[in-house]
């Protein structure tokens, strides 16, 4: 009887384990099946490097270069803002802050991670967008910069919590050794802790970026969604994710537009896969 119970539970857990892999494979195959059909209409080169995105015209123009650049620009902006602040915050929490402050800060960061992105987008739309418009004196505040700032808030919790973990797991004797050699606290952090935790911090950064590039709702609400090739961070952009979200409702199933949106899904999949694998490599390097 006990043996049977063990057997059933074991198999059940095994099925659970296989299920996730099974679903990924299914999803990926579905994406490929629906997405690759677009290349019958527009060649891969024309699709990836075309400069105009007019999906519902006859014939449709399906060039996603402006969308790719839009996504990359918003992500780059968010990275520039969130990495220094996030890593700084992690260092403060791990090394400097007294216990009480530490607890409050950690709770605060968890709270930041809990804000739904549509709420952040909405807040950004009514507060940040007019501010950006007035500060820079530009025609509209719905720009890549607004998106970057809002997304930086979203990347920060990921970066802080993983970077803090990395700093925390640096062996204590490194720190004690540094102090014994007469290093100041800053010298210890800068010369010992950060280099020792560098691979973990890089992983934190990659995961933060992964979160940003896949984000949809907030960017759709505050980046203006104009499919032009951006020449500065103060112009409206349209991202890959926002394009899928905004247009899927209309796309006639089985049309060029529909296939093109799935192909955008493949591009996004490849980008976030690359980012996650890079992060994984850094994390494993740390564990070795």
């Amino acid at each position, binding site marked *: 009887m006990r043996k049977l119970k063990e057997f059933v539970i074991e198999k059940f857990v095994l099925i659970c384990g296989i299920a*996730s892999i099974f*679903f*990924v494979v299914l*999803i990926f195959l*579905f*994406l490929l099946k629906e997405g690759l059909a677009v290349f019958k209409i527009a060649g891969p080169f024309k699709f990836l490097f075309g400069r*105009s*995105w*007019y*999906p*519902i*015209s006859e014939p449709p123009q399906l060039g996603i270069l*402006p969308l790719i650049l839009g996504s990359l620009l918003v992500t780059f902006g968010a990275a520039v803002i969130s990495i220094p602040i996030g890593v700084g915050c992690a260092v403060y929490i791990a090394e400097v802050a007294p216990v009480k402050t530490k607890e409050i800060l950690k709770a605060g960061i968890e709270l930041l991670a809990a804000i739904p992105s549509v709420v952040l987008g909405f807040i950004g*739309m009514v507060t940040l967008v*007019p501010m950006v*418009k007035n500060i820079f004196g530009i*025609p*509209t505040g*719905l720009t890549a910069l607004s998106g970057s700032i809002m997304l930086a808030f979203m990347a920060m919790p990921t970066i802080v919590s993983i970077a803090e973990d990395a700093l925390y797991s640096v062996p204590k004797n490194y720190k004690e050794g540094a102090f014994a050699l007469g290093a100041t606290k800053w010298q210890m952090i800068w010369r010992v802790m950060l280099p020792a935790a560098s691979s973990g911090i890089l992983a934190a950064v990659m*995961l933060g970026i*992964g*979160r940003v590039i*896949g984000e949809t709702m907030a960017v*759709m*609400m505050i980046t*203006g*969604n*104009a*499919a*032009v090739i951006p020449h500065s961070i103060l112009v*409206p952009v*349209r991202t890959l994710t926002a394009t*899928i*979200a*905004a*247009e*899927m*409702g*209309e*796309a*006639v*199933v*089985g*049309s060029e537009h529909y296939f093109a949106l799935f192909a955008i*899904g493949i591009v*996004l*999949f490849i980008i*976030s*896969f690359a980012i*996650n*694998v890079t*992060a*994984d490599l850094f*994390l494993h390097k740390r564990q070795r």
Partner: protein
Amino acid sequence: MEKKMIKKLLIILLALMITTPASGAKNKNSIQVKGSDTMVNLGQAWAEKFMESNPGDFVAVTGGGSGTGFASLISGTCDIAMSSRDIKAKEIALAKAKGIAPNEIKVALDGLAVVVNPSNPVDRLTLDQLAGVFTGKIINWKELGGKDERIVVLSREVNSGTHVYFKEHVLRKNDPDSREEFSPGALMLSSSQAIADEVAGNPSAIGYYGMGYISKNQKPVSIAKDESSEYEAPIIENVVNGKYPISRPLFVYTNGFPAGLVKKFVDFMLSKEGQDIVLVTDFVPVKR
């Protein structure tokens, strides 16, 4: 790491699935109405009044865009599709393949208002000037007798029937061979309310939406067919007598000729009471 990626993909896929929900239940006393965001308020007002006077009957109204409505009608997940544009040839073909025969019924008219910020001195435009602004040939308000400011062009997303109507009838002037497109720099906003908000806060913005969204925070522009015609304001009277040049029919589509509860509801829309509701929700009745 992979898990995060899977989650992201699942979310994308879920979003796709949600756009065509399976309502399944085919109770005789319950119908599903789906489609045009422009018509959602109208549809809901109809449904409320209808259910009040016919207790026991149930009408559910949801939005999502005209294309979403057609997609659900074709997949059999709704009984009535609301649309602010004609059904496309491609959609008819898809419907026939699934054994659905879309039947068009005109239920109301909608005047499209072109709006600017109240502080903008420009208050009248010709259709040619409008086309110039929205295709990006006219880029400064100076060219239209306004201040020396860059024009911020606001448009709805491509999943909106309003977007399609405006492109075909204003940008392309009803010419099926025309290749005019919205300027790539046009900001694509996801709702009429978003356009209303941006116009209210931005002195150099111009946008378009159904007449119902005009408030004192935006100034509707009077439109003339050409320079020698009268400039007409977007008011109900001008839409009914056909003087205002940018107005469009609003449709509902059923599968074959309406029967049973669907017929009862469609008849209610076209009744005196139903058409009064059209007027109350800021649209223009087809029958007076």
